[in-house]
């Protein structure tokens, strides 16, 4: 046999081998052995053993740390990593362009949205189809009704808003740009008329075509309040194109939409989920052009429990198979929600918790709150005119006019998007409220910031930094390829301030938490207070001081980070995304409270529910076409509810919960090398266990928000999270899905339902 003997390396053949040749042959072999120097055989064996050892050692040294960082240092992970590498190299044409370099960052002011005005009663009462309860009044198909009109819960009639889906143009910057290659070298550029511009020529970006709520990006902001319902009539006017804009090759090909108020406590017909849409209402993937739907948001906490109140929603498209494309094309709106009960959190820093905010009420029932700023983060990628456009939808013939696979020099400088299920989608320009590298002049006082990650897949890790040298372009620092993402860096940046986190997805925390940095996963919200009067060391700020909101998480593709604070931080990756310039002192009546909103209690018996929990595991693979992900072995099937994996009690319960019930659900990340922000519609939850450990008292160090209420489960590679959640007030179908929109659009979603 092959092996080592007691006298060193030698052939330790068995009896069969000893008899492997007739006598003559054996004699020959002996002669052969005598004539061949022993050293040659030994050398061969040493070489073989050495080569194997060197190979294993080298592979371990080079590949091991990378696998470990991605949670792939296990047998399955090796296959996942090898399969992914092979796919990247040979099978998936997922080419990203390099956006032109914005030459004058931090010149454009941060756009701070104003509250949308509601429709006057006289206006909406004149509509042909007036909003209201009763059969056939919920949409233009006249086949649905609102499950619960406000009077059923003793709430007033809703404020009525009208939001049209419009085709419009949007500019991310007013700065000149320099077209560059992926190596950072000057590149040719193009325009819609076919003109070619030489390398090094500075350009002005053309407007990108958006499908926007009321034609803006981000869309309008509705400042809502608990106890005051809101009804939004969404009208699809995407068939109109008054400015004759090129629709390019992304966005739902039929221009349909489906709006989800993330994560409001909403009845299914207003929740904008495909599980509903395919079987009721439009009975299609979304609301087509020329149709409308009234989404009714009761602004009513789950179970009528004040402890379930939240503080920051956002609404976005949820059209099946094209959510990522539609959101990326602009379908994003903001929906802060205040709590006027006892003035607790009503946007008035003189009352209640006294969180930063100066409220200005308007006669139409709307209000704005100064010093209370929503920040929607969104990473974009602009076409370089030389990258081939190709994805599954081109193969399916969704955009015949684009004649893909093809390059599109006529779209140079406009937003680029393709469905890249293998890499996911990340941009290389980071925008805030629709502007790249904005600047905001702040008063010397405290501000409340509502952070929202409206990106398709990018996760951010934010810190507040000062920099002596200021931002330098990554190109000028010699970076190339994926290191150009973010375009600018403050390599000398040092943390100078801290955040005081006051809220997460699920609303106000029980108490404020001081944070040096925090991660923001897709669709997640974090609210923080920043005190611009002094630095973290106590030194007062002065007028003209500059502080950068800086992203320190390097995420070259949509799978997961390559460098982050939690795993092998890159001290040179400090990308400034928003510049604060400190201005004059301003009156500040706000305070950082000691206590905020108590958590709804967990039942003492929650551990006894473990055996009967529902278990859902995401798995990665290909099924052709749109299906790249399975949950519990099944792709998303719109008219069915998912079944749990076998739980400890030996059952595989269907994801049907009785109205008014609570249960434990386990979400497992079964795919190697990917992270998932897993979102569950309808009610927020509490994480009770992560990777088998009880986190109700002490959260996992990597996920400090586990101790709060959330609507997204942040799943690192290979992680398992058990959540406790309720199913109250409404009945009908809902969905749960990954909010990495490239995952969601490729079937990483399952239907569930609440039964009466």
């Amino acid at each position: 046999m092959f092996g080592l003997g007691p006298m060193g390396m030698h052939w330790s053949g068995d009896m069969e081998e000893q008899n492997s040749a007739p006598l003559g042959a054996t004699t020959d072999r002996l002669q052969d052995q005598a004539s061949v120097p022993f050293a040659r055989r030994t050398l061969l064996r040493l070489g073989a053993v050495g080569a194997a050892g060197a190979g294993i050692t080298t592979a371990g040294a080079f590949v091991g740390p990378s696998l470990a960082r991605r949670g792939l240092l296990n047998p399955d992970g090796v296959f996942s990593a090898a399969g992914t590498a092979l796919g990247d190299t040979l099978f998936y044409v997922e080419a990203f362009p390099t956006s032109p370099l914005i030459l004058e960052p931090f010149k454009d002011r941060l756009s701070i949205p104003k509250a949308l005005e509601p429709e006057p009663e006289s206006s909406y009462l004149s509509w042909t189809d007036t909003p209201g309860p009763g059969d056939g009044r919920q949409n233009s198909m006249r086949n649905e009704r609102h499950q619960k009109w406000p009077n059923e819960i003793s709430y007033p009639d809703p404020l009525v808003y009208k939001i049209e889906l419009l085709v419009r143009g949007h500019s991310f910057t007013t700065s000149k740009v320099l077209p560059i290659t992926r190596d950072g070298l000057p590149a040719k550029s193009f325009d819609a008329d076919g003109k070619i511009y030489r390398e090094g020529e500075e350009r002005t970006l053309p407007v990108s075509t958006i499908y926007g709520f009321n034609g803006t990006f981000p869309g309008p902001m509705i400042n809502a309040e608990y106890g005051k319902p809101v009804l939004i009539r969404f009208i699809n006017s995407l068939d109109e194109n008054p400015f004759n804009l090129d629709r390019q090759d992304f966005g739902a090909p039929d221009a349909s939409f489906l709006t989800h108020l993330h994560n409001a406590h909403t009845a299914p017909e207003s929740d904008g989920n495909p599980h509903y849409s395919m079987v009721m209402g439009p009975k299609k993937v979304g609301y087509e052009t020329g149709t409308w739907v009234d989404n009714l948001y009761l602004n009513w906490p789950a179970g009528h429990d004040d402890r379930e109140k939240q503080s920051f929603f956002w609404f976005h498209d949820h059209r099946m198979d094209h959510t990522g494309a539609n959101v990326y094309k602009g379908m994003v709106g903001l929906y802060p929600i205040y709590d006027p009960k006892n003035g607790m959190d009503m946007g008035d820093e003189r009352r209640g918790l006294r969180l930063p905010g100066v409220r200005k009420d308007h006669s139409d029932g709307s209000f704005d709150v100064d010093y209370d700023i929503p920040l929607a983060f969104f990473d974009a990628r602009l076409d370089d005119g030389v990258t081939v456009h190709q994805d599954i939808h081109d193969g399916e013939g969704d955009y015949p006019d684009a004649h893909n696979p093809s390059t599109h020099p006529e779209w140079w400088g406009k937003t680029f998007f393709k469905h890249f299920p293998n890499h996911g989608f990340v941009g290389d320009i980071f925008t805030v409220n629709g502007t790249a590298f904005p600047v905001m002049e702040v008063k010397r006082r405290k501000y409340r910031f509502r952070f929202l990650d409206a990106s398709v897949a990018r996760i951010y890790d934010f810190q507040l930094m000062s920099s002596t040298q200021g931002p330098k372009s990554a190109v000028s620092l010699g970076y190339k390829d994926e290191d150009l993402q973010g375009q600018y860096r403050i390599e000398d940046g040092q943390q100078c301030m801290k955040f005081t986190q006051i809220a997460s997805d699920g609303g106000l925390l029980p108490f404020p938490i001081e944070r040096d940095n925090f991660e923001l996963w897709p669709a997640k919200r974090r609210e923080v207070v920043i005190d611009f009067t002094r630095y973290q060391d106590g030194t007062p700020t002065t007028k003209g001081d500059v502080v950068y909101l800086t992203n320190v998480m390097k995420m070259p593709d949509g799978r997961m980070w390559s460098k982050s604070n939690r795993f092998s931080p890159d001290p040179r990756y400090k990308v400034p995304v928003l510049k604060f310039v400190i201005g004059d002192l301003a009156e500040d009546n706000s305070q950082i409270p000691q206590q905020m909103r108590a958590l709804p209690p967990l039942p003492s018996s929650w551990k006894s529910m473990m055996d009967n929990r529902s278990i859902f595991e995401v798995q990665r693979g290909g099924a052709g076409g749109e299906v790249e992900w399975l949950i519990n072995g099944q792709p998303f099937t719109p008219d069915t509810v998912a079944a749990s994996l076998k739980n400890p009690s030996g059952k595989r319960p269907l994801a049907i919960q009785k109205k008014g019930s609570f249960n434990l659900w386990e979400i497992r990340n079964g795919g190697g090398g990917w992270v998932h922000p897993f979102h569950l519609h309808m009610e927020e939850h509490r994480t009770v266990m992560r990777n088998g450990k009880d986190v109700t008292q002490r959260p996992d160090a990597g996920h400090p928000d586990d101790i709060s209420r959330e609507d997204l489960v942040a799943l690192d590679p290979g992680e398992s999270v058990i959540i406790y959640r309720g199913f109250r007030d409404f009945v009908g179908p809902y969905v749960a899905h990954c909010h990495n929109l490239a995952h969601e659009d490729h079937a990483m979603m399952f239907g569930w339902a609440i039964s009466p």
Partner: protein
Amino acid sequence: MTTEALLHRGTVGSDGPAERSVPWGSMVLPLAALVALADQFIVVVLRTSVGSIERTSDPALSWVRESVELLPVHVVAVVVALALVSRRWGDVPRGRGPAVGTVLVLAATTALAGAAILLASSLWDYHLQAAELVHHAETHRTCVDACLTRAEHASLVVQLKAVGVGIPMLAVTNVVLLGWAVALRGRPIVAASYRSGARPRVVIDDRRLALVLALVGSALVHAAVVPEHMGEWRAAGVFFVVVELAQVTAALWVWRQPGRLVLVLTAVGSVGLVVLWAVSRTAGLPFGPEAWEPEPVGLADLSAGALEVVAVACCLSLLRAERRGLPRGRQHSAHLRGAVVAAIVAVTVLGIGGSGLPAVDLLSGTGGHHDVDAAEGQTGAG
């Protein structure tokens, strides 16, 4: 035991000449195992990259399972390679050229086996993906007709591309691996070993050996599908138990007393099974819960059918030899005999792997679809 019986079984006397045989323990099994592990790694990695989603969970477990279950296929390849080597360069190829040639022949035959496995795996992936595309089109109603056709075509192209990429990878891997194995061994690979005549040994007619193995193999495959059929239709489950017992009985009978009667009965029974299978896969059986509905062809029934055809052929050959008065105990070369035995074992194992038994399932992986009892609907705890 009578002298005649001993002759029937071909007992070789203790003073007989050295007997040429396949070096199973020292060459075939180690090399086949090495190649199986390496080649299946490539197959599973390719599947992880582009394969059907329901086969991509637990890749490490799939790799181990498939390496074990497909080992007989690689054994066949190694035995064939050794036969070719023996024919070209003798049982102990000496010199640099023959040594390198031996490695290349081994690499070629094993890569061929690996390529066949890869092709079958990729086509199965395509089959599953095409079904999933149809399901997706039906439920999402977004990609039908021409779009669906294009999507199916794209899926097929990706699978064929995976095969195109995988075959050179298999060939290069096997060359490197087998070269490394030779280096580790320190001297050339031998194509045949020789047993001295010191140990008495039972020799059985090749056809009878093949017949016994085919019957046992078919019986094992039928046993493997009993649980599935019991769940669907108890009568079918009982039928397969009866068939399995009959085949085992026939195998024992053939092994102990290969008379005309048993050969005729075995041939008739096997033909009957093949005809029944053919009807069930074409017109559908006229009875049962799905009367006149053709069943889909699967790996298990194909394997069992193939083994039954082999059994019929062996029976006919033995009956003809008896009719012509030809002596029994006929033996072909050690390598051919070894290859046939390994091939029958391979078909048997493939059949069991295709039976749907969870622990050995070659087709769906462990991430397959779960049957759900809708009556188990969750009501929550509150």
